[in-house]
């Protein structure tokens, strides 16, 4: 018998026995090993038996023996790589846990040797990095030698592998695993520039991670029909997110903002930044750097540069975080993993709740506002936000507090973000630094940030700029009907249109405002009209004196958008209807629109009646189509009576659907009188109709006339 045959015999006997009597099999192999200690197969067979029986201690010992005695055996390496893979993975299955346990039975020295050698055998960058990371985590003393190199390898890999997003497997590993090891290792001397570079890499990753969009493979249910704009939060919980190249579990980053703050704290301490060491919250951080900013002009050289970096990095992080918090509240569907209890989205628009106010008061203030807006827009190019005045300062943002539970936090975030932005633009040096960060992160392509910026400039009253920003946004976001079939896009599209309408209105461009808004309204399904509730809501606001330049966060729902549209149209026509010159069409529209929220607009309605009385006649052929308010019908019926002043009312349409409003006045015949009476009677029976349906029909059917009749 040859040695080879002996060994084969021993192994084959063990294999025969192992299933029925594993102890006997092992006895054979133990004996075999003493006979042929240099034979690999005997030992491997022993290892396999122990491994399959999941006996960590003996399997670990045998593996180590093989690792030492047969370092060139591919089988050993395959085995070691299976184990290291289990160490890297996060699977909780029994076998992986066993393999991890097996590795733990080895002594530190052996683990280290094994990992280093295994790393050498790795050719895949990610795998190699993960392997080295295992080493660094277990043996902190190796961080000095390998830490920075590993970090740079990972950052290089992003470039060489053409990874687009900062949220990628290499960056994740760098930011979440390598960086904390490196910056917390006090044995290492790291140049400030490198620390800052790493800090920004980490920030870019965490911000990118937090603001990541929903996964494309998980469709958001509902909202298919454009009319029902509702919260698509239902499928949120089940959404999964996987960073390419990583497992689902290792793709999860817990408490990203806190982690980022941790890194910032360490980096700050190591870069000798000013202020106390433990920066435990973002808001405090803003206060601190704002304070620091005061000394900036007096500083020079390196101190100034260090101070600049600190201010810019801190303020930028506060900005992005607060802007994210704001946007995640007003448009939660943009992000994955944002826990939305509130409905969304919300739109920052001009507050029109004062539209029912008396026209005289209004006119004066509107004119004043417009003048200011023009001024502001004229300075758009040169104006940085800190020298805004009037409109931009102290504007109130109204919100229905029962609809948005976290309204206070949301508005706080918006304010903090604006303040950070202002701080970053308070010195050229800061602005330049900040712009560099923005350029390298390509923040221009961040839709969510664009949303914040737009709202911010709307707040500042720079409507022209806001409009161009909104147009720009349309180029960043998916077009309706394309890409996203989830209804997300149309929702998004609506949002932008409504905001554009609001800006046009603020600029006095009423035709544009109505055009945009009527586009949205035509796609809505009218909700049921609940007069009592609305009246109550308005009643509450009525008590306060509203400035004309307040803003409102409007929920992007049919229920809220349709009334807003009606109010905006009312606001547009109100000014025209009550001019000295006669404009029956506008006055008619006003009457129709005043039905909503009745009797809130009673004062205005009486003013309109007064004007009709003055004119002695009134022609509005759509009257019976859209006026169903019993009080109004009564008033108009009264106007025709002798007591009412025998006002000549032409409220019945001619044969055609559309009649130019300057049609030749018809003679009043008995037949017409009879028609009017019948029409009135019929109209009274329509009082129970859903008012919003009537007004919605008005918006759709009269869209062209409405738009054409505005400047």
């Amino acid at each position: 018998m040859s040695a080879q045959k002996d060994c084969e015999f021993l192994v084959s006997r063990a294999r025969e026995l192992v299933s029925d009597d594993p102890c006997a099999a092992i006895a054979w192999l133990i004996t075999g090993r003493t006979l042929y200690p240099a034979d690999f197969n005997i030992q491997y067979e022993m290892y396999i038996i122990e491994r399959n029986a999941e006996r960590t201690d003996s399997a670990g010992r045998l593996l180590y023996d093989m690792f030492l005695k047969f370092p060139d055996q591919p089988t050993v390496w395959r085995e070691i790589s299976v184990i290291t893979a289990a160490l890297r993975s996060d699977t909780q299955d029994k076998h992986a846990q066993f393999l991890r346990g097996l590795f733990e039975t080895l002594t530190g020295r052996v683990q280290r040797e094994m990992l280093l050698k295994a790393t050498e055998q790795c050719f895949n960058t990610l795998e190699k990095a993960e392997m080295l990371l295992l080493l660094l985590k277990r043996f902190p003393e190796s961080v000095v030698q390998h830490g920075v190199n590993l970090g740079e390898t990972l950052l290089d890999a992003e470039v060489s592998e053409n990874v687009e997003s900062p949220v990628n497997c290499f960056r994740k590993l760098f930011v979440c695993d390598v960086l904390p090891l490196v910056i917390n290792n006090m044995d290492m001397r790291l140049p400030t520039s490198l620390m800052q570079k790493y800090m920004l890499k980490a920030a870019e990753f965490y911000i990118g991670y937090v603001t990541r969009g929903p996964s494309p493979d998980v469709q958001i249910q509902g909202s298919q029909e454009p009319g029902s704009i509702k919260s698509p939060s239902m499928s949120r919980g089940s959404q999964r997110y996987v960073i390419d190249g990583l497992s689902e579990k290792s793709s999860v980053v817990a408490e990203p903002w806190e982690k980022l703050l941790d890194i910032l704290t360490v980096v700050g301490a190591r870069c000798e930044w000013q202020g106390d060491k433990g920066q435990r919250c973002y808001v405090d951080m803003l206060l601190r750097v704002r304070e620091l900013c005061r000394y900036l002009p007096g500083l020079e050289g390196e101190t100034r540069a260090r101070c600049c970096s600190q201010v810019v990095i801190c303020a930028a992080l506060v900005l992005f975080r607060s802007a994210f918090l704001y946007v995640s509240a007003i448009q939660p569907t943009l992000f994955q993993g944002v826990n939305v209890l509130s409905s969304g989205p919300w739109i920052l628009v001009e507050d029109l709740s004062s539209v029912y106010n008396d026209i005289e008061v209004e006119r004066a203030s509107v004119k004043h506002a417009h003048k200011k807006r023009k001024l502001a827009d004229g300075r758009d190019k040169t104006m940085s936000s800190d020298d805004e005045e009037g409109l931009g300062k102290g504007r109130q943002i109204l919100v229905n507090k029962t609809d948005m539970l976290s309204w206070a936090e949301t508005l706080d975030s918006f304010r903090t973000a604006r303040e950070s932005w202002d701080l970053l633009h308070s010195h050229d040096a800061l602005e330049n630094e900040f712009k560099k960060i923005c350029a390298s992160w390509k923040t221009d392509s961040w839709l969510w940030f664009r949303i914040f910026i737009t709202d911010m400039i709307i707040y500042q009253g720079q409507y022209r700029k806001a409009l161009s920003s909104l147009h720009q946004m349309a180029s960043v976001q998916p077009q309706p009907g394309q890409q996203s079939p989830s209804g997300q896009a149309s929702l998004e599209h609506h949002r932008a249109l409504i905001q554009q309408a609001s800006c046009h209105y603020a600029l006095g461009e009423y035709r544009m405002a109505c055009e945009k808004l009527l586009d949205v309204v035509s796609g809505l399904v009218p909700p049921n009209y609940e007069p009592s509730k609305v009246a109550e809501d308005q009643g509450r606001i009525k008590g306060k004196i509203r400035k004309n330049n307040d803003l409102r966060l409007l929920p992007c729902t049919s229920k809220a958008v349709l009334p807003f549209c009606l109010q905006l149209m009312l606001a547009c026509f109100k000014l025209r209807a009550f001019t000295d010159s006669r404009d029956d069409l506008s006055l008619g529209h006003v009457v129709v629109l005043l039905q909503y929220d009745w009797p809130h607009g009673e004062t205005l309605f009486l003013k309109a009646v007064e004007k009709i009385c003055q004119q002695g006649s009134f022609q509005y052929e759509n009257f019976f189509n859209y006026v169903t308010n019993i009080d109004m019908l009564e008033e108009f019926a009264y106007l025709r009576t002798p007591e009412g002043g025998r006002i000549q009312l032409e409220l019945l349409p001619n044969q055609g659907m559309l009649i130019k409003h300057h049609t030749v006045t018809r003679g009043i015949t008995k037949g017409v009188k009879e028609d009017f009476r019948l029409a009135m009677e019929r109209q009274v029976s329509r009082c129970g109709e859903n008012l919003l349906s009537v007004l919605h029909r008005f918006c759709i059917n009269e869209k062209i006339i409405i738009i054409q009749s505005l400047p």
Partner: protein
Amino acid sequence: MRRFFHQDRDDATRQLIFSTLFNVDVKDQQAETRRRSLFGKLVSLSLVLDRTAVSECAATWLQGMDREFHLQLGQVLLDDYVPGLVSVLQNIRRASRRFCCQFITVVAARYDLSSEELTPPLELVHMFVSWIRDDPGLVLLTLRSTPLSSSQPISTLHVTPLEGLMCWCVKAPLVYRSTAGDGENEGNTDLLFSALHLSCLEIIQLLPNILAEKGVLGHVPLIQLGSMAALTSDLSKLLQRAENVASPDCGLSLERLAQGLQLARVCRVLLCCREELRAVCRRLPHNTLLQLVMTGPVMKDSGVDNTDSEAAGLTEGGVDPPLPPAGEEQVVSEGEPSVPGIADL
């Protein structure tokens, strides 16, 4: 007496009282017998009553007693509790690891499977296997606490149960087969003794380190060639009685013997050369593994003494680091002729 020993006293005091009671220097044969009998009864009683203190004292004290007495005590315990009350003996393990080790040693020496009376009840084997699998170091406690020197007469050593247990494992396939007989139990019995056998091999692998620590590795034959010769002689008689020498049971016996001999020799607790081994086994029928063990491995490079490579195999694949110093390994080849690689003899 039980209560007396149970009272709070420190170990040394207890030990002293125990010695005073039993360590009477008596020339009187009758008194001696009575003393021994009393001692046996006390230990036996302490088991039922689960008195740790008494068992501990007894264990220490037993160490100083001769083999004769160990056997007597074992017999007392066995008479009292086997086969009917084996479960009482479970208390031995709980009472004292050291005494437990003694007990296993006594029992292993007592039963040699030569007759039905001397065949341990399976319940007892089960108990031993579970003890030893849970705690392989258990059976080495006596060895660890016994001072050894190469000059000490080997015949007085009865410090491990290995010889006895090996004997059980080797004979079991033939003995239990002829006594028990029903199919399902056979398989279980095989597995039971396989486990015991593997434990023995694993324990043998622990021995070189212990002996090296004591500086007697290669000098103290914990497993004696004489015992092995007796075993092979018994085995050959058993095999002669077997219907078919080529049956799996016979093969199993021979293979266990071969494995035990190989491990014991390589671990240098069986001090003999292959020539002597062949002599001991010459009356046994052919078995491939036994053949391989007697002739030794085929050498790839015939110039090298293969015993060295075996020793190296043991230490590298060995179970217990720290490894014995390299110098010690050289001793193994002393007196052993180099066995050239011979193909099938």
